[in-house]
């Protein structure tokens, strides 16, 4: 019994075991078509210079319950908006964008910053993401980071 720590003790009480399905947040599923619409809408905003509107839109519509494809598409949309804003503004101006967001939107922004940092396209723009991250934490403190770690509504 040298490896007693590795015994799966939950296997002995299967009926009480909390399943993964029970931890899925109780929210309606987001269809792929909706995310595509958001993506197009945000591009329209960006091309007409409505940066704040684009940012608020993509942060208001995270697909929490959906398939991987949908989540990935939305991540790319958010990334596009973040790049576009940064490329058209100074670093110092990012702060005013973040201040115009609600607390909920700031939380979602941090979730996407972490997610995009893990992607290959995000890694190439690491400096840009860190600019955003620094400014969010400056405005909102550590709360959104904790919520990113604890939230079951993953992006």
């Amino acid at each position, binding site marked *: 019994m040298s490896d007693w720590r590795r015994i799966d003790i939950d296997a002995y009480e299967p009926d*009480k*075991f*909390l399943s993964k399905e*029970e*931890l899925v*947040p*109780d929210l309606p599923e987001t269809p792929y078509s909706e995310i595509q619409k958001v993506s197009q809408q945000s591009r329209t905003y960006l091309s007409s210079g409505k940066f704040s509107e684009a940012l608020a839109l993509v942060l208001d519509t995270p697909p929490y319950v959906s398939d991987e494809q949908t989540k990935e598409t939305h991540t790319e949309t958010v990334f596009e908006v973040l790049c576009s804003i940064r490329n058209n503004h100074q670093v110092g101006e990012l702060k005013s964008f973040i201040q115009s967001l609600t*607390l909920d939107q700031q*939380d979602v922004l941090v979730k996407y910053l972490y997610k995009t940092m893990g992607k290959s396209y995000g890694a190439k723009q690491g400096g840009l993401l860190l600019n955003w991250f620094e400014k969010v934490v400056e405005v*909102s*403190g*550590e*709360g959104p980071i*904790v*919520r990113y*770690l*604890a*939230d*079951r*509504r993953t992006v």
Partner: protein
Amino acid sequence: MSFPIVYKLGTEPIIDHVFSSSGDVLAITVGNSVKLYKVKGLSKPELFAELKGHNKTVTSVDISPDGSRILTCSQDRNALVWEMCEGEYKPTLVLLRINRAATICRWSPLGDKFAVGSSDRIIAVCYYEEENDWWVSKHLKKPLKSTITSLYWHPNNVLLACGSTDGHTRVFSTFIKGLDAKPEATAWGSKLPFQTLCSDFVSETGAWVHGVAFNATGEILAFVNHDSSLNIVYPQGEGLPPLAYHLVKTSHLPFRSLVFVNDNKIAAAGNDNVLVVFEGDQNGWKELGPTEKILDPIVKHSSTLRSADDDDDEISSHDALNMFKQLDLRGRVTKTTTGGANQSTSHQNTITSVKLYSLSHVSTSGDDGRVVVYKV
């Protein structure tokens, strides 16, 4: 007396603490035992008893409302009730029937029963059976599927709020036939046979629940979870959605414990080492901010940090840690960093439990081995 009062009780973490209702006795968990201190009218707490009966870490301690019994529970899957007998505390084992660690124990407001939460996904509601001369338990099982992290009794001695790691905060009935008088109907429900689930709340993030609390009348329920926010619920009645549900997001690290100071004030504390006060009513709640300033520990704040704790000759754990950091960074130890507090707050590490001390004071214990009484 000036507040906050800081009691330094060694270097081991304190998971739970409790003052007796008269304020004379302070009980803290230290490793596998519980230490009892006399505190009233003394400048330094005086150790007068150590309760040794568990063989794993003690996770919770509570003193009965009349002060005559002390309840402890531990990771060794047992709970003990300690009573004074011929000048010594003698333990009685409780028949918990759980297979995993007990995480929390609390006396009911009348002191005739108590609840023990466990990681066996069970809450054992225990009461004294005279015929057998033994503390027996009834289990609250359904629909619990995860570790119970916190418990709080409703003042009517029947309803019990519990928080668990699946993110649910539930209110159960613990009505025991033959022991409890039939409770009057409350906003939580009217028919209350044992194990009735009266309410079930999940915060929007669904994060671990760390602490739950009722207000003094049991008409408001609040809970904190691992997402650094505070949830407050005003129930409307059986089967109805709550009258009001408020969520206060903060920029702090997660809160571990909370308590109602009065119906319009809540004190919560946790990984930020500081007590945070919230204020509000049914229409909304807001954060009033921390009771102490949080200064960056890396920047030197000599005037505030060199507090009057030089009477401690023993080197504390954070001083030791600091010493090694200095050695690592500079290869030598500078005199200024040994002795004195490291942080600007009264607690130097995570606050693990928050309790009401009096109508305007709150006591806290932390992983730094300190118990602090704050004025709020």
